């Protein structure tokens, strides 16, 4: 797999882990029992003991006043995701200095937030939590639940990339062992994105964006008023609406 790298490319082979400072797993739970639905997303430390999962599930059910038959399904869901994470753990993955675009497109309670930015997954010291905190503070987001949602979303995307790089590595090894013709096409989106991005940057020769593209990379926060007000949308967005459409067109072009 040939990639155009920016600088000194040191593909380091490490054991699978989240490419962030803290090796935390994003967990998404969606359980429906008897017409009641519980949806949640949070970050979990995989080194916490299993008893912690059980007590967490029970506590959450108690706090949210959910009936007890939620707990086993919650447990199953959480443990399943953790097991999947751990199944990747023993294996190698290849981290290059890849810069990938991440997107955030969330609605949390009444706040809608949309953003896209570039993230260096080669930096094993990166911190999605800090990013989320800073983003919320900078954008004056008053709802405290937005921060964790952003952090989880970033982590999920990073997890996706990391697990794909594991499978890429596996394919590479298999190809070395098995077939003569080392032909494999990695169809992972992130890798393609990264490659394209290098092209994008490389041709221009500068890491500073053009001014007219700045609006593409500004985060958009909309606070949607509650539906009792007749579905009015109060727009606190930092960019005008007509440009939002242009943004969509432009982002499609750039990718």
């Amino acid at each position: 797999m040939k990639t155009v790298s920016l600088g000194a490319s040191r593909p380091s082979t490490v054991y699978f882990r989240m490419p962030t400072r803290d090796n935390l797993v994003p967990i998404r739970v969606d359980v429906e029992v008897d017409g009641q639905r519980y949806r949640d997303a949070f970050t979990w430390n995989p080194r916490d003991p299993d008893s912690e999962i059980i007590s967490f599930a029970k506590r959450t059910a108690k706090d949210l006043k959910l009936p007890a038959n939620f707990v086993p399904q919650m447990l199953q869901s959480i443990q399943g995701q953790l097991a999947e994470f751990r199944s990747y753990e023993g294996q190698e993955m290849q981290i290059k200095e890849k810069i990938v675009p991440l997107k955030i497109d969330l609605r949390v309670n009444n706040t809608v937030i949309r953003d896209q930015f570039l993230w260096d997954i080669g930096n094993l010291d990166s911190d999605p939590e800090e990013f989320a905190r800073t983003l919320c503070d900078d954008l004056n987001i008053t709802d405290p639940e937005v921060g964790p949602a952003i952090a989880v979303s970033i982590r999920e995307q990073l997890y996706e990339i990391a697990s794909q790089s594991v499978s890429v590595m596996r394919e590479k090894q298999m190809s070395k062992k098995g077939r003569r013709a080392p032909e494999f096409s990695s169809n992972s989106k992130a890798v393609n994105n990264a490659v394209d991005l290098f092209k994008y940057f490389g041709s221009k020769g500068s890491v500073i964006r053009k001014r007219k593209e700045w609006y593409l990379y500004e985060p958009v926060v909309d606070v949607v008023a509650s539906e009792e007000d007749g579905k009015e949308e109060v727009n606190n967005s930092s960019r005008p609406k007509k440009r939002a459409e242009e943004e969509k067109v432009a982002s499609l072009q750039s990718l």
Partner: protein
Amino acid sequence: MATTATTTVTVTVTAAAATANSVPTPTPPHPRPVAPPALRAPSTLGPVKSETPPTPSSSTATAAAAAGAEDPSYIITVPSYSAWFSFDSIHDTERRLLPEFFEGEAAAASGCRGPHAYKYYRDSLIRRFRARPGRRLTLTEARRGLVGDVGSVRRVFDFLEEWGLINYGALPSGSKQAKEKREEVAQQSLLPSGATVPRKLCTGCRTVCGLAYYACDKADISLCTRCYVNNNYRPGLSPANFKRVEITEDAKSDWTDKETLHLLEAVLHYGEDWKKVSEHVGSRLEKDCIARFIRLPFGEQFMGPKEDRMGFENNDDNTDEPGADVSKRLRLTPLADASNPIMAQVAFLSAIVGSDVASAAAQAAISAQSRVDLNDSEIETSINSTKEEGSSHTNGLSVNDLLKEAAANARAQLEKERNSIEQSLSNIVDVQMKEIQDKICRFEQKEMLMEKERQQLSCLRDLLFTDQLAVMQHQQRTPAAVTECKGDEKPKPVANMS
């Protein structure tokens, strides 16, 4: 570090702003020379309008504090064992009880594992609770608003709740009991953590390891037994790589009162048979029982009463000091074997009671002994006279006392009974009198009615009489009209009628 400094300041300022309406904020954060908060602050602080202040964070903070002070509708109570808490710093207690944030590789780190993260969680949780002090803050609600992994948030939350910095007095049910329990727990948690200094942290689950831990020489990881059993370590390691290391400290030596009581009973019954003693106590090893028994405070009291008794009983007991408590126990055991269970209890009690009390009791008992002579025969048969006398004195005294008490009790109860009987008798008499009065009233009314009726009847009779009279006169007139010669016959019908 500059970016993290920014984060800290803005978090505290906006959090303080959010709570400015309802709560007098405690110590305001330190002023830091950071420009952005000044520009941001006016839009977020609703009630507090600060235009361009020279030192942004301090003035907004003090403004927030002032706004909060104007509205002292809530009083935040913090229990006395948490008086050390302050928003500005991290106290030693916190460092000790939540080592995962402060020790190991987290000491220099930031992110989700450092002191900075701990402070962020702690400050946000407390501010969140104080915004609605009467309401219990649940973990789920809190962790949904905090950026970070839920395990660490839960640990900080539990710590704060235990120490009353969160949800203090805000429990929906049984709040007093819960508060007492928490104080107990807090005191207990202080004791063991204060006692032991070098503790082993498990790299797996970040808890303090108990009795033993498993060390791996390959990768410098030490796991507690639970993580070891759960195979909670890196895939490159196998169980064989781990060595078991015992922690040689008395980590589980909190003897509860119940256990101590069992121990004493057992010693009383079984004497030196520590096997049976440990069985009786339950989950304690023999050597634990022995160690505990020796360390029990009343060990000294074995000496005390002996000295006093030596004083006034004037005997030549030459028991040497080091062997004293062994011989004490020996002296205990014959009594314990005595068939009389009361004697056994008394021996036990006299051993437990202090030396002054025992001497006073013994002296009083000697004088009482002359009056109440209960257990002479049994005493003479036992081996050591001094001990038995002393115990018999206390025995006699106690029986006498008991009798007196019982008599007094009986008398008091008798009095009470008499009083109650008198009371009820008077009540009965009252009720019956009332009944009779009511009856009399009713009879009177009936008499009145009868009187009236009688009068009416007599009226009617008179009327009838006059009517009859009229008729008779009429009859008389008509024949009189025919024959007017018979004149004086009027009075006759009148006489007949009456």
